[in-house]
């Protein structure tokens, strides 16, 4: 994937049946706007369809707004018994190919997870263990898909609630290793980073720093909600990625932080439910927040990055974060199984985080202060969001606790 060759799409919204009429009305208005410049669709919902679903889809197609597909069932993390890659479901692939051609998809994407095992689809994004073997399988699967569709592929960092088996490496190392091996792009879901950081107790900005940001082609932004209790076992998680709420200020802060470091080709607001809460106007207010940050960070980005992330293919170690991660990946390979679960390696993690905080000079702490929501006439909840105070140096534990507490206090 050569990111520099991909078209810039700007800000977009996830197309959902429930907001079809609002989207059409909004886009048919001839006044130029920069809030919905493209729409993301879940392609599995539109293949092999006739009747009303097809008619509705054609109506969206006729609007002329770019459509970008984001799949849920390619199941790139599934392994097969004997082959080096998954035996894909060709009925699905054929349907998707037809649709991708029809909408002239610039790229396609799916989650870094497994939804199909054997012949069965389980309708859930099941997490994948952070192992060397998984890096291998996933990279092979991605290479096959890119070859089949002849399009660039991006995988999305998912929200996950548990480690099914002991990880052999850190999540960032895992992601970077796949990016390097499969030479594909990253769909960075900033909300997922935040959700995972609370559920798994790590620092979200450090996570962003560790990623190979040169490969970020698309960004997802969304809301989440507190807690979910399993109905099948005595088990609970702190926050759940629902795409049903407004974006939290901490996630906007993280987005703002990320946009300083990379320039994605497309940014998306994901909303899957609760459309009635504040109506479509509520959604456009959410889009305005993203637009504001995108515009203010663009200038910063252009001044500071000198497009180092535009040609990921050709510059292996231009960003320090990227270089660190490649090194991590190499270490993992050399030393074999290098388990780094949060619990066991907490001390090492704390030391590492401490070092990174020291090096960063804490300039990330005041980041949200330069996002002036007051100027945008947004709902009071956002406008009144206090800018985090400058903090004294703290260790990782304190930082995570504060973060979790801030979230729980919301």
């Amino acid at each position, binding site marked *: 994937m050569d990111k520099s060759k991909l078209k810039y799409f700007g800000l977009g919204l996830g197309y959902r049946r429930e907001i079809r009429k609002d989207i059409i009305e909004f886009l048919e208005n001839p006044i130029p706007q920069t809030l919905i410049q493209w729409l993301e669709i879940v392609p599995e919902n539109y293949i092999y369809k006739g009747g009303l679903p097809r008619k509705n889809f054609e109506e969206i197609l006729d609007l002329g707004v770019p459509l970008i597909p984001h799949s849920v069932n390619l199941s790139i993390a599934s392994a*097969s018994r004997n082959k080096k890659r998954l035996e894909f479901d060709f009925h699905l692939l054929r349907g998707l190919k037809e649709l991708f051609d029809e909408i002239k998809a610039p790229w396609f994407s799916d989650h870094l997870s497994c939804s199909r*095992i054997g012949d069965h689809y389980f*309708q859930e994004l099941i997490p994948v263990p952070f192992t060397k073997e998984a890096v291998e399988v996933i990279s092979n699967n991605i290479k096959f898909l890119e070859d089949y569709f002849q399009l660039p592929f991006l995988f999305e960092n998912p929200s996950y*609630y*548990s480690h*099914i088996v002991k990880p052999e490496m850190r999540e960032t190392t895992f992601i970077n290793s796949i990016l390097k091996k499969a030479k594909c792009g990253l769909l960075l879901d900033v909300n997922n980073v935040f959700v995972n950081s609370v559920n798994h107790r790590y620092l979200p900005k450090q996570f962003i720093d560790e990623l190979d940001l040169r490969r970020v082609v698309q960004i997802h932004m969304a809301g989440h909600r507190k807690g979910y209790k399993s109905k*099948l076992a005595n088990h609970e998680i702190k926050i759940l990625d629902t795409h049903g709420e407004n974006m939290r200020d901490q996630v906007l802060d993280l987005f703002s932080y990320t946009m300083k470091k990379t320039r994605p080709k497309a940014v998306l607001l994901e909303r899957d439910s609760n459309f009635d809460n504040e109506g479509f106007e509520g959604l456009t207010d959410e889009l305005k927040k993203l637009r504001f940050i995108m515009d203010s960070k663009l200038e910063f980005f252009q001044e500071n990055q000198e497009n180092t992330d535009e040609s990921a293919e050709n510059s292996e170690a231009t960003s320090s974060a990227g270089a660190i991660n490649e090194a991590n990946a190499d270490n993992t390979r050399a030393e074999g199984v290098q388990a780094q679960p949060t619990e066991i390696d907490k001390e090492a993690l704390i030391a590492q985080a401490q070092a990174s905080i020291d090096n960063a000079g804490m300039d990330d702490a005041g980041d949200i202060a330069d996002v002036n929501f007051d100027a945008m006439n947004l709902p009071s909840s956002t406008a009144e969001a206090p800018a985090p105070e400058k903090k004294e140096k703290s260790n990782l534990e304190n930082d995570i606790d504060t973060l979790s507490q801030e979230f729980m206090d919301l």
Partner: protein
Amino acid sequence: MAKLYRIQQEIKNYFMGKKVNPKILSPESQKELSIYKSLAIDSLNSTMRKIFPLCYKILQDNWNPIIQEYYETYPSNSAIYNQVAKSFSIYLKDWKFRWKYRNENYPKWLFELAEYEWVEVDLFNYYRDRKISDDSSDSNLKSSGELIRLTKAHKVYRFDYPISKIVEHLSSERQIYNLTYFKKAKERLLIFRDRYDKIRYFLLSDGSYYLIDKLRSGTNVQDLYKKFYKKFGITEVDIDSTEAKLNDLLINFTKEGILTSS
């Protein structure tokens, strides 16, 4: 690749409510996985309620455990989400279900109702036919030597119970009768998506059933009529009146948008 494969096989066992090898997937991991299974069942639950509102009316108290068991025993083999509901009628028909809920006195037509409700959704999973005949004039039908056939968006069912009446009754806001009220009475239905993308049905008699059967594979009108007269022993005397009836039927089908010509 074997290790990841083996782990995923155990995850599959866990999701399907089967025995799991604790050496590969520890009880702790299974507990962690329960979040995913629980979330998947939650979303299946709301999808199934939308697809089977009438079955839901009947199963209400046991709906949640039934959905969980359905999720475990009939995982979807299609990437298209609503296909997950495809096997619900098979699940309801299975002896294991009937045995488990034998004291509930669920009506014997429950699985047929599920079949009907599923078809209402499934008919949207068929591509629109390229050319739907819309000239419903009598002369046009007979004069053209073109092959006519039914559009793909249809299903023909033979039910043991009067499903059309049951659907009508359960869909009304009225109090539900004693569910055993509906007695066995065979019913053949042509369920189809009309030209306005509404799901409709025709009750089929022996004659119209025969006609539909021929129209499924495609035929021209002259041949169709000839075969019909032969099959039902229509004599010279009755030909005119029969032809008028057949014409009416085909005109009706054309109006509904379920005939296509090629």
